């Protein structure tokens, strides 16, 4: 694909060996362009999170290749770049459970991601507050994670993922802790980030009410990704909305 932000070829992940061997992901190939917002759906245990952590350079695959921005970054289990540095610069990752650093406030949780990327403290602080404002948790900026509700924590985590204006955003069930309108707002935010900033977004979700915001929907089952085009009609059925080309 031209202008591909994320390309995976034959990603396979095998846990254990012999009679305890479990294939979590099998020959998963996917291509997401810059500016494209993609949903990955499927039943629990289908391998969606495994796929996402592989693309996020968190959990290397057993086999296959990952290219991000046209650059080969992972070949089999071997990283061809420093995964942490690459993730810091290019990937925003949001996990299912809001993962915030407990000893930092909401604002500092967002700010730290930018400071780790070399942003000045002042600029990082200003942008952190902007993002929190945008996500509706500005007034909770001074709160520590245990003082925030699940939804507030998740919005702070989203703000952190967006902080460094990454070219790739990977979100694993980001709206699980949010109510319907707030969940939809976050999904629409992902789409806007994709379209306005040219980021490639992959969202693993079970929330079929918001599937209409995605450009493409892929389904994953038994570790295999089905093509997006094949899923459009299914997505339309799930959401009751119109699938995007």
């Amino acid at each position, binding site marked *: 694909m031209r202008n591909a932000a994320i390309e995976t070829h034959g990603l396979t992940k095998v846990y254990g060996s012999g009679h305890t061997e479990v294939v979590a992901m099998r020959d998963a190939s996917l291509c997401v362009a810059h500016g494209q917002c993609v949903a990955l759906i499927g039943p629990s245990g289908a391998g969606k*999170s495994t796929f996402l*952590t592989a693309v996020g350079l*968190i*959990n290397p695959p057993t086999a296959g290749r990952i290219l991000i921005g046209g650059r080969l970054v992972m070949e089999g289990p071997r990283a061809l770049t420093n995964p*942490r*540095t690459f*993730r*810091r*610069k290019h990937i925003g*990752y949001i*996990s*299912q*459970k809001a*993962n*915030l*650093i*407990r*000893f*930092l406030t909401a604002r*500092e949780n967002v*700010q*730290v*991601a930018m*400071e*780790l*990327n070399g942003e000045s*403290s002042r600029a990082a602080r200003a942008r952190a507050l902007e993002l929190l404002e945008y996500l509706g948790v500005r007034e909770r900026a001074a709160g*520590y994670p245990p003082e925030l509700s699940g939804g507030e924590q998740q919005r702070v985590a989203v703000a*952190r993922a967006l902080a460094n204006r990454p070219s790739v955003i990977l979100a*694993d069930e980001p709206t699980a802790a949010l109510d319907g309108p707030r969940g939809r707002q976050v999904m629409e935010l992902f789409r806007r980030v994709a379209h306005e900033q040219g980021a490639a977004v992959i969202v693993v979700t079970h929330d079929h009410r918001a599937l209409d915001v995605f450009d493409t929907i892929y389904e994953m089952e038994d570790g295999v990704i089905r093509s997006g085009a094949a899923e459009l009609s299914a997505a339309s059925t799930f959401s009751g909305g119109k699938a995007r080309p």
Partner: protein
Amino acid sequence: MNLARKDVWHNRGRFALTTLGLGTLLMIVMGMGGIYRGLTTEATQLVDKVGVELWVVQRGTRGPFAEISRVPKTLVDRVAAVPGVAEARAFVYHTIQRLRAGKPLRASVLGLDWPTDKGEWLPLSAGRPLAQAHFEMIADRSLGLTLGERLPLGKEIYTVVGLTSGMSDPAGNGFLFLTLADSQAVQFDQSPEGIRLERQARRARAEQIDLGNTQPTMLERAAGPGSQLPALPPNQISAVMTRLAPGVNEAAVKATIDGWADVSVYTRADEAKMLLMGVVERSRRQLGLFRVLLTTVSGIIMALILYTLTMDKLHDIALLKLIGASNWVIVKLIMQQAIALGALGYAVAWLLGQKAYPYFPRRVILTPDDLLMLAGVVLGVSVVASLVGIWKALRVQPNVALLG
């Protein structure tokens, strides 16, 4: 953003308690070093402060501190007559233990050779030197005596006219300075019944010999005061302190006196060495060993504390890695906390020590060099102790942040 500071601030209550605990432990380490230094200082301070060059003692002994030495008082005049000797003084030294207000009072009594020596050389913190030949004394503050206090010793009552600070013997007993005559009166004090029994025993021995039976005055003499018997020697002194005239060759004077068959001569350095290598050697080594052990234990405890602190935030560390923090960021987080813990613990130790050390039974001396060395050791131990936590933190994978 300083992550270590943020973490410490967020967990400030726990961190403060940990620091207090570590500080208390370090206070003991610091105190042990201070006691070690106090012991060595106390051991040699009398030799240093008396300021004489030569000590003349009983032949073959290593007196007067390391072992008992007995020399006749006339030795003072013999030594004073040696060319190059500016001053010779008698030295009497013994330990007493009496009851004062129902509690034991243990002190080292040191005789001053009145009127030559009135104790002017003593570092008085209150009062004055001795002003009369009898019944006055200078006491060290560690004994708990006050200026003007009257203390019965033997058959007499002595008044405290001066106070010193930090003047104690190698065993940590405070000094009492009396005139030579008074100190010997205290040392050789006998009860009236004891004196009567001794005189009667002498008379009984005299009656068993022909001379005693044929010379009635001899029997009378034998039953009289011991001091009037020419056959009995007078009370002896422990040593003769010898100060040399300026410019005199110490070795030459030493060699002259050493040539006498009844005495041994030691320089100030010899005495100091005998005290350090003999009298306090075991205590010194014991304290040194304790100090090393306590420092090691402190290091292990610090390592455990830092390891626990790291384990508690392993999820946060994994999360930091997930968002791209480099290993250096993680190392800094743990090491800065370790150094902060060590530095604050050290400060707490010092502050607590300032309050606690004056109540220690032994003198605690904190020298700048020792404090600096301990600071260096604590810093080193902090860094080394953090390595276990760092090792654990560097091994944690970012995907740990995604679990549970």
